[in-house]
C-alpha cells in the first residue's frame, strides 16, 4: 500500500475533528459576528449574509445533520472571505488569517466532524439504546485531517521562506515592526537591543521551519506542539494578529493522535479506557 493510500485510508476517533468543528465556529464568531450584525447593513446581500451566518454557524456548532451543516459552513466562510472579501472589496475580510479559516472550513468538511460531541451523536446513542445495541463507534476516515495538517505546515514553511532574508534574520525587520507598533519614530535602541532582535528573528524563522516539518514526526510533537502554542501565544500578546492565534491553536488538533485524545477525554470524564 502506498504512502498516499495509507494517508487517504487513515481512520481514527472523531473526537478531535468534533472539537475542531466547535472551536472553528467560535473563531468564526469572534472574527465576524460583530461585523455581520443586522444593524451594520440592511442591504439584501448583507441581510442574507446575517441570516445565513448565525443560522449556519449555530447549526454547525450543535452538530445536527452535520454532513450537510459542515458543507454549508464551508460555503459560508468561503462566501465571506472570497465573495465579500476578495471579490467584493471588503479587504479586511480577505486577510491571511481569514483565508486560512476558509481553507480550514473546507478541509474540515472532508472529515466526519459530526460523529462526536454533537446532536447527531446524541441521536445515534439514543437510537442504539432504544434498539438495545451498544452506541456506534466514534470512528471515521481522517484524511481531511491530513489536509488540515498540510495547511498548518504550508503556512509555516512559506512564512519562514519569506522571512529568510538578512533583514529578518538580523532582527532589523522585527525592530521596524517594534517601532511601528510600540515606540513611534523616537527610538534610540539601548545596548544589546540589536542583538536581542537578531536572536528573536533567527529563532522565529528556525522554529517555523522546524514546525513545518517536525509536527509530522510523532516523537517530536511532545516538544514542538507546546513550542508552537507558545509562539502563537507570544504573537497574540505582542502584535495585532486578531483570530490568527486561536485558529492556529485549534488547527494543532490535526497533529494530536486522535485515539489518544479520545482516551484522554474518557479518562477526564471518569470512563473506563477502551479495549484496544
Amino acid at each position, binding site marked *: 500500500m502506498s504512502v498516499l493510500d495509507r494517508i*487517504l485510508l487513515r481512520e481514527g476517533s472523531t473526537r478531535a475533528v468534533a472539537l475542531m468543528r466547535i472551536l472553528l465556529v467560535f473563531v468564526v464568531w469572534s472574527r465576524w459576528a460583530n461585523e455581520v450584525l443586522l444593524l451594520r447593513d440592511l442591504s439584501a446581500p448583507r441581510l442574507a449574509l446575517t441570516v445565513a451566518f448565525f443560522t449556519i454557524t449555530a447549526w454547525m456548532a450543535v452538530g445536527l445533520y452535520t454532513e450537510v451543516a459542515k458543507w454549508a459552513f464551508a460555503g459560508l466562510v468561503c462566501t465571506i472571505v472570497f465573495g465579500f472579501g476578495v471579490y467584493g472589496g471588503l479587504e479586511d475580510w480577505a486577510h491571511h488569517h481569514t483565508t486560512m479559516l476558509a481553507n480550514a472550513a473546507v478541509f474540515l468538511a472532508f472529515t466526519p466532524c459530526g460523529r462526536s460531541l454533537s446532536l447527531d451523536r446524541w441521536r445515534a446513542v439514543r437510537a442504539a439504546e432504544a434498539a438495545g445495541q451498544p452506541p456506534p463507534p466514534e470512528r471515521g476516515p481522517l484524511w481531511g485531517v491530513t489536509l488540515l495538517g498540510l495547511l498548518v505546515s504550508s503556512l509555516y514553511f512559506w512564512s519562514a521562506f519569506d522571512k529568510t532574508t538578512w533583514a529578518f534574520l538580523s532582527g532589523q525587520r522585527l525592530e521596524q515592526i517594534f517601532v511601528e507598533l510600540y515606540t513611534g519614530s523616537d527610538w534610540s535602541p539601548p545596548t544589546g537591543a540589536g542583538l536581542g532582535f537578531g536572536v528573536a528573528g533567527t529563532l522565529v524563522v528556525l522554529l517555523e521551519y522546524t514546525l513545518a516539518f517536525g509536527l509530522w514526526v510523532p516523537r517530536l510533537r511532545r516538544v514542538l506542539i507546546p513550542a508552537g502554542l507558545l509562539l502563537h501565544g507570544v504573537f497574540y500578546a505582542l502584535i495585532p494578529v486578531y483570530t490568527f492565534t486561536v485558529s492556529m491553536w485549534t488547527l494543532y488538533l490535526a497533529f494530536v493522535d486522535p485515539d489518544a485524545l479520545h482516551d484522554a477525554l474518557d479518562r477526564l470524564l471518569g470512563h473506563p479506557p477502551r479495549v484496544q
Partner: protein
Amino acid sequence: MPPGERAPFLRVVVFVLAAVHLQVGSVYQQLLHRRAPPTTMSWEMYGSVGSKVCATAWFVRTADGALAPLDRQAAEPAPRRFLRTQREVQDAARRLCRTLGADVRVEARCATRGGGPWRSVFQPDDQLCIPGAGL
C-alpha cells in the same frame, strides 16, 4: 485497513488538488515574483508592517561639540508620532532648529520598502540646521 486496499480515485484527486492549492500562491508570489491568484495565499505575513517608518535619536550639539540627548516629543510644538521618510526627518530637524535655536542633530534610519533592512539616512555629523543641507 486491509492490505492492498486502494484509496478511492476521487479522494486521491481531491487530496492532490487541495495540497497543490496550498502551495500555488506562495510559488507565484515568493518564487516567481508574480501576483498570486486572488483565492490563494502567499503566506507573506506582516510583510508591510513597519516597512515605511524611520527610527530617530535626537541630539543638541553643545558649544564644546558634545551631543546632548533631545526629547523631540517634548521639544516640538506639535510632534508627529511617526516620521516615515528621509524628508520628514529633515523637516522635523529644521523645525526643531528654529524652535530651539540650537544645533539639532539626528541619527536616523529608515526602513526600506519590501521588507528590506534599515537604511541610514542621517548621522549626527550631518548639519541639518543649515538651509540646503541634508537632502
